[in-house]
């Protein structure tokens, strides 16, 4: 048996050696050549990315940004559903050309991949049953739901160390757990929670029973993720989103998904897309 395990370790090491190389070519040229932009997006997280049940098309804030980028390039878009946990590996392995999936910029991630300028700014809050949580104290020693591999998970562990953090594959499963009383709160970015609350408000069975108390534990700047060192591609995406800010497209997309008449109204406040380095240093 020892020999067998030894052999296995040897095999692993060999495969590992082959793994050494990862790709960082010129995505801009590749996408133009192939005529297809492969975008990693969320598929069940309105208002950022979800499949419309009637048309079966992808829709959302992230999707509209991807569409604009593709239009400017004159290429088609192929959407690949990603989760918070698998989006970075998928990008680094070259399965997707960019990540537009509610991804917070932070220094650890910025070591692995490159980010665009901030295209959305929000803060991490909690969604709970009405009246259940008034301050961070109410969360101590409780179970809190979030998604695997997200910054939300790491932030909440820091903010409420005594809480038990349960990580699901994605946020809606956490919301379901709140609804069923299995966790006291689900925590992530306000923008995502607002979308979830909007869904709960639309349903007569859950209307008026949930809220997002005004407790923020972090700033969350979203960036579009691209492979490290893919300079031309990063510049192109950055130029494009700055252009979107200038011609009013970015504000229009915001109003479409988060304006007062949307399902998840939040304020854009003073946020505009600028050549910022937020979250990456």
């Amino acid at each position, binding site marked *: 048996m020892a020999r067998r395990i030894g052999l296995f370790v040897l095999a692993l090491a060999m495969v590992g050696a082959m793994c050494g190389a990862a790709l960082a070519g010129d995505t801009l040229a590749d996408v133009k050549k192939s005529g297809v932009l492969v975008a990693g997006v969320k*598929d069940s997280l309105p208002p950022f990315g979800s499949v419309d049940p009637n048309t079966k098309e992808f829709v959302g804030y992230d999707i509209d940004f991807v569409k604009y980028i593709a239009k400017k390039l004159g290429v088609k878009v192929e959407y*690949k559903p*990603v989760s918070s946990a*698998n989006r970075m*590996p998928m990008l680094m392995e070259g399965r997707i050309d960019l990540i537009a999936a509610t991804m917070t910029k932070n220094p650890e991630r910025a070591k692995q991949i490159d980010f665009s300028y901030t295209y959305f700014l929000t803060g991490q809050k909690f969604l709970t049953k009405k009246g259940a949580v008034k301050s961070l104290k109410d969360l101590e020693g409780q179970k809190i739901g979030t998604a695997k591999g997200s910054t939300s998970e790491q932030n909440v562990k820091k903010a409420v160390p005594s809480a038990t953090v349960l990580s699901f594959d994605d946020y*809606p*499963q956490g*919301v*379901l757990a709140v609804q069923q009383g299995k966790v006291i709160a689900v925590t992530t970015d306000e923008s995502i929670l607002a979308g979830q609350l909007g869904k709960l408000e639309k349903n007569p069975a859950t209307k008026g029973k949930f809220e997002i108390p005004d407790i923020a534990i972090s700033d969350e700047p979203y960036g579009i993720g691209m492979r490290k060192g893919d300079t031309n591609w990063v510049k192109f995406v950055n130029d494009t989103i700055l252009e979107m800010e200038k011609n009013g497209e970015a504000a229009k997309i915001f109003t479409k998904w988060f304006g007062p008449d949307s399902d998840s109204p939040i304020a854009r406040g003073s946020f505009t897309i600028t050549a910022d380095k937020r979250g990456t240093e």
Partner: protein
Amino acid sequence: MIGGLDFSVVSDNLSYFFIGRYPKGPLGGVGLTLYLAVVSLALSFIGGLVLGLMSVSRNRLLRFGSSTVIQTIRGMPLLMVIFWMFFLLPAMLGSGMTASWTIIVALTLFTSAYMSEIVRAGIVGIPKGQTEAAISTGLSHGQAMFYIILPQALRNMIPSFVNQFVSMIKDTSLAFIVGVTELTQIATQINNRTMLYPTEIFIFIAVIYFVICFAFTELSRWLERRLAYRKAI
């Protein structure tokens, strides 16, 4: 209590459950589940045959090699094999692999290890005298295996293969974890969107899986009885 369930969420999304975004996007749902299972099973048959033949080979190195591969794979959860493939394949083969094909490779690798045992048992189950008789008529060892032993062994293995197909269909549900839109992933998507009907959604897909798997389990039993009957006469 079943009276409190509202299955309209199922009827509203019926086509999504069965074919996913097709024809506007790739095939998904039940269609993709069956596709993954059929392709992986066909490939596992080949993989199982190769590993199985290696394990009854007279060459010690081949025997040792196959048994190492088989034991290692059988010692791991399928989920682990899937993660490994997701991690290693792109590094080794570049970015050409889709998620569906990565899952197919993982399922194939995993199931081949189990298939090889079926193949081995099938070959060992044919009386030794047959090989000896074949060799005494002038066939080589390899010829005896391919023309005499294997055809009989394979026929006896058919019910086990069908059974393996049932496991395969159940195993495809793990593709959910890496975002392949087969039936389980579709169900979670709809559940995430609608929020209020997890009970209805999961009962529904459990029944779908059951109908498919049970049909094949019965087929396997029927084949087994027929085979037993043919042997008896």
